[in-house]
C-alpha cells in the first residue's frame, strides 16, 4: 500500500508497467526499488512511528544484506529508531551494551565502516564475541546518516553467513542512506506529532517502539544514580558491566531493575 501520510514521489514512475523486468543495478534503479520497497511495504508498519522500521526492511529488500537498523547518537546515549527484525534489534542492543561497534565508529567519524567477521573480532572484541554468539550475523557495514550538521545517526547493515561484504556496492549504500535521511526529514516536516508527555512537537518516528524501549535504560540509570550517588555516565557503566558479566543486554538489565525483579544492590558491585 502507499503510505497515506507521505507525499507521492510522482505518478509517472509509480504507474509505469513492466518496470521490474528492466531493473538493473544502477543508481536510478536502486533508488526506485528502495522507494517502492518502503512506500509500498507492509500495511502493519504504515504508521509514521514505524517509518524507521519500514526503511530498515526496505534496505534488506534491495541490498544483499540480512538485517538493518537505524539509530541516533546523542553523546554516548544511543537511541535505536527501528530495525528490520528481532535479530537486528539484538545486534543494536549489543553495540549499545558493549559501548563499542561499527555503528558508533561510523557515527563518530562520519565515515562508512565496513567490518568483516575477523575485523569485528579484532577491533571490538567484547562486542564481537556477543555478536557471533547471539545473532545470525557475521559482518556489518555502518553508514553515517547526516540528519543535521551536529546530530549523528547511522544505518547499520548486517550480513549473515551467506552474504558477502563485497557484494554490497558503495554507490548503492550511499543512495539508500541519502534516501533514508530525506524520508526522515520530510516525514518530520509533515508528520510532526505532539509528544503527549511533554506537549513538545517532535517527529513521530522518534517515538517508535525501539526508541521507547530504550527509555527503560534511562530510568534504570536514574535509579542507580540515586542509589549509588554517582553521575549518569557511571550509572550507565555499571549497567553495562552487569549486563556483560551476566550475558544479558543492557535493555534486559534495565527492564529487570524497573520491574523490581532485579535489586539495585546486585548491580552495585
Amino acid at each position, binding site marked *: 500500500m502507499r503510505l497515506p501520510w507521505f507525499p507521492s*514521489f510522482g505518478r*509517472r514512475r509509480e504507474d509505469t508497467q513492466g518496470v521490474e523486468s528492466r531493473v538493473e543495478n544502477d543508481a536510478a534503479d536502486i533508488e*526506485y526499488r528502495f522507494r517502492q520497497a518502503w512506500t509500498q511495504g507492509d500495511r502493519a508498519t504504515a504508521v509514521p512511528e514505524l517509518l524507521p522500521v519500514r526503511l530498515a526492511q526496505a534496505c534488506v529488500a534491495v541490498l544483499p544484506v540480512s538485517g538493518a537498523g537505524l539509530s541516533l547518537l546523542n553523546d554516548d546515549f544511543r537511541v535505536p529508531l527501528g530495525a528490520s527484525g528481532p535479530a537486528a534489534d539484538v545486534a543494536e542492543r549489543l553495540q549499545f551494551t558493549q559501548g563499542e561497534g561499527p555503528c558508533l565508529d561510523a557515527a563518530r567519524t562520519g565515515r562508512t565502516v565496513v567490518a568483516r567477521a575477523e575485523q569485528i573480532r579484532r577491533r571490538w572484541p567484547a562486542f564481537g564475541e556477543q555478536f557471533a554468539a547471539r545473532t545470525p550475523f557475521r559482518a556489518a557495514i555502518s553508514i553515517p546518516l547526516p540528519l543535521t550538521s551536529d546530530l549523528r545517526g547511522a544505518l547499520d547493515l548486517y550480513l549473515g553467513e551467506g552474504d558477502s561484504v563485497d557484494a554490497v556496492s558503495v554507490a548503492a549504500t550511499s543512495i539508500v542512506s541519502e534516501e533514508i535521511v530525506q524520508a526522515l*526529514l520530510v516525514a518530520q516536516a509533515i508528520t510532526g506529532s505532539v509528544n503527549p508527555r511533554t506537549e513538545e512537537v517532535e517527529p513521530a518516528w522518534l517515538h517508535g517502539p525501539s526508541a521507547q524501549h530504550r527509555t527503560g*535504560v*534511562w530510568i534504570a540509570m536514574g*535509579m542507580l544514580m540515586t542509589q549509588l550517588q554517582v553521575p549518569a555516565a557511571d550509572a550507565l557503566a555499571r549497567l553495562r558491566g552487569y549486563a556483560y558479566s551476566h550475558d544479558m543486554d543492557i535493555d534486559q538489565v534495565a527492564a529487570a531493575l524497573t520491574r523490581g525483579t532485579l535489586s*539495585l544492590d546486585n548491580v552495585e558491585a
Partner: protein
Amino acid sequence: LIKQGLDRSTNRGPHDLHDRRLMPFKGAAAEFAGLARELSVQPDLPSTLAAITRNAVETVQGAEFAAITLTSKGGHYRTVAETGDLPREVDRIQYATGEGPCVDSLREQAHVFRTDDVKTDPRWPVFGPLARERTDVVSMMSHRLYLEGDDNLGALNLYSREPAAFTDHSLSTLDMLATHAAIALAKAGAQAENQHLQTALASNRSIGTAVGILMATYKVTQDQAFDLLRMASQHSHRKLNDIARDVADTGTLDIGR
C-alpha cells in the same frame, strides 16, 4: 520559435502516452532520480531553492526564467529565488495586483495555472496588461509547491517572452519537478529546525532519568514518578522538560517552588 512550433504540434495529450511507451522507462527514471538527488543533497534552503529554479529552466521546455514564491505567516508573498531579472518584476506586479498565475496557484483549488499570453488572459484583467507593459513576459506557468500536512506553501513559476511557450509536455514536466521540489523544500525546512531534534533526544532521556531518580528516592512506581514531574511542572509553571533536566542534573525534585 521553430522548436516551439514542433513542440506544440507533437506534444498533445495522446502523444504524451505515445512518448511514454517509446521512451525507455529507465531513461526517465534516471533523469528524475538524478534531479531528485541533486535537490536532496543541497546543504541548506537557499541552495535548494536555487537548484530548483536552475533545474526548472533546464528541464521544462519553453521556460526562459524560473522563480519560487513562498507565503509568509501573515499571508504575504515573497519571491525567494529566481533566475534572471524578469521574474522579480513580474512577481512584484502579481503581488501588488493580487492577480496572476502564481497568486492563483497558491489561492485557488487548482494547483497549476498556465497561460499563452498574460495580456489577453481573461482571468487576470489587471495583472496581464500591466505585466506586458512593464516587462517582456508573455507566457507563464505556475505550480503550487505543497505537501499534504505541511503548512508551508509556495509556488514554482516559469516565464517566457514568447507566446504559447508552454506545451502539455512542459506542464507534465513541471508537475514532476514540483513534486521533487516540494519534497526537497520540506527536507531543507526540517533540516533547518533540527536543533530541535537534538533537544528532543536529550529531553526524552532527561525525563527517563528523572523518573528513575524519583522512583528510587520516593519508592514510587514509574507512573507515580511521572505524576510528580507533572505536578512540579504545573506548580512552578515551568516546562516538564526543564523540570526533568533539573532533576536529572541535581538528583532532587523541588516540588514546592
